[in-house]
């Protein structure tokens, strides 16, 4: 046996800087997402269409539309994020790359964090950027639009995080996507209440900062806890 080569194998040339995992995983998913851009646009179109259905359904009365605007945009945002959740892990699960990610020397929670970040960049962020246009459609003023964008900016990452737990837990389950919706939607309720609540309060000139602070707090807690929960769920799903 070649002694130096054996030595090299005992000390594999593994260069692991744990924090790189977030970047590696996010970059990989963004690259994959950009290769199938149609899917990204689809979720965004879904949002636009759902929001645009409401004026058709409830009539063009501007006072009513303005009152329901924040709720409509928020519910549509939530459903649009829900639609994109299967993309998070299902494809990796099906083609075997998820096993490889779980077995990677990089810490799984950080890989999960990277995947969630990429998911938000491709679902929550574009949706937040389109939201002012939709708000205008409902006659929201400048100040309310700013609050709407701020609430979505803080709230949609939480949607991605909670959704990631649901998606990881329902991997490989038959009828998993409906089960995931049933699991995830109730957990979305607080985000919905604080998010659309902030916009409504800004419409009647009440201080809305408490709602935004709560969303911000939720975001921070989620960022600390969710990657570990997702990692545990993925390990269970693969067993």
């Amino acid at each position: 046996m070649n002694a130096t080569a054996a030595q090299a194998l005992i000390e594999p040339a593994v260069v692991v800087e744990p924090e790189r995992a977030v970047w590696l995983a996010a970059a990989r998913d963004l690259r994959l997402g950009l290769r199938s851009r149609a899917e990204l646009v689809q979720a965004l179109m879904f949002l636009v269409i759902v929001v645009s259905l409401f004026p058709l359904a409830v009539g063009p009365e501007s006072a009513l539309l303005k009152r329901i605007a924040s709720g409509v945009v928020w519910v549509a945002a939530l459903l649009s994020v829900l639609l994109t959740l299967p993309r998070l892990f299902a494809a990796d699960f099906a083609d075997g790359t998820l096993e490889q990610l779980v077995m990677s020397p990089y810490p799984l929670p950080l890989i999960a964090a990277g995947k969630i970040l990429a998911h938000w960049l491709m679902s929550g962020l574009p949706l937040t950027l389109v939201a002012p246009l939709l708000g205008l459609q409902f006659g929201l003023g400048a100040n309310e639009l700013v609050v709407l964008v701020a609430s979505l900016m803080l709230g949609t990452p939480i949607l991605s995080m909670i959704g990631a737990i649901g998606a990881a837990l329902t991997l490989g389950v038959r009828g998993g996507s409906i089960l995931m919706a049933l699991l995830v939607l109730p957990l979305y309720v607080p985000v919905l209440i604080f998010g659309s609540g902030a916009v409504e309060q800004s419409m009647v000139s009440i201080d809305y900062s408490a709602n935004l602070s709560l969303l911000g707090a939720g975001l921070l807690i989620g960022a600390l806890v969710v990657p570990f929960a997702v990692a545990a769920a993925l390990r269970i799903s693969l067993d």
Partner: protein
Amino acid sequence: MTLSATCLTLSRGPRRLFANLSFTLASGQALVLRGANGSGKTTLLRVLAGLTVADGGQLHWNGEHWTALCASQRAASLYLGHANALKDELTAAENLAESLAFDGVAIAGSLQRQSLDSMGLAQRQHLPARRLSQGQKRRVGLARLALARKPLWLLDEPTNALDAEGVALFSRVVAEHLQQGGMACIASHLPLAIAAPVHELVLGEIAA
């Protein structure tokens, strides 16, 4: 380096796949798992990889106890399952680069291209993986094996879909790995012509 399994036991529902299975694998040795379909070859490989938790028994690596998916297990082992773990959207070269990045090894692009060339993929490196044949996808996996510098290879039916030339390539890659002091566990139905000490483990149904 040694990998030792002691008293591994695992049941799937009412079926007991293996019970009190013990073996030791040392540097330069290969273990070929044989047995009928459903006899637990894949499951045993997944236990060794840490993906599946056995009902009982322990794994030790150089005397260090391995809990499922512990850091040392993830650093030492490379598992190639039934699925090729390739992304259809990425080219063969990009797929190889991505997997090696997640294996935690930094390998120059030129070496990666050379490795793909030597696996007979010279003309196919820049095709999206969905346009590769099944055997060509397997060869991308072989290129990764050769480059990832992991001491323990866990291979599930690695020669599936490979042509005669591909099987010869595979045998060469494994022989080189063993010669360098690595070890391999290979589940396979087909006879493997590996020029190295190979042990066989036959799994079969066990009366519960």
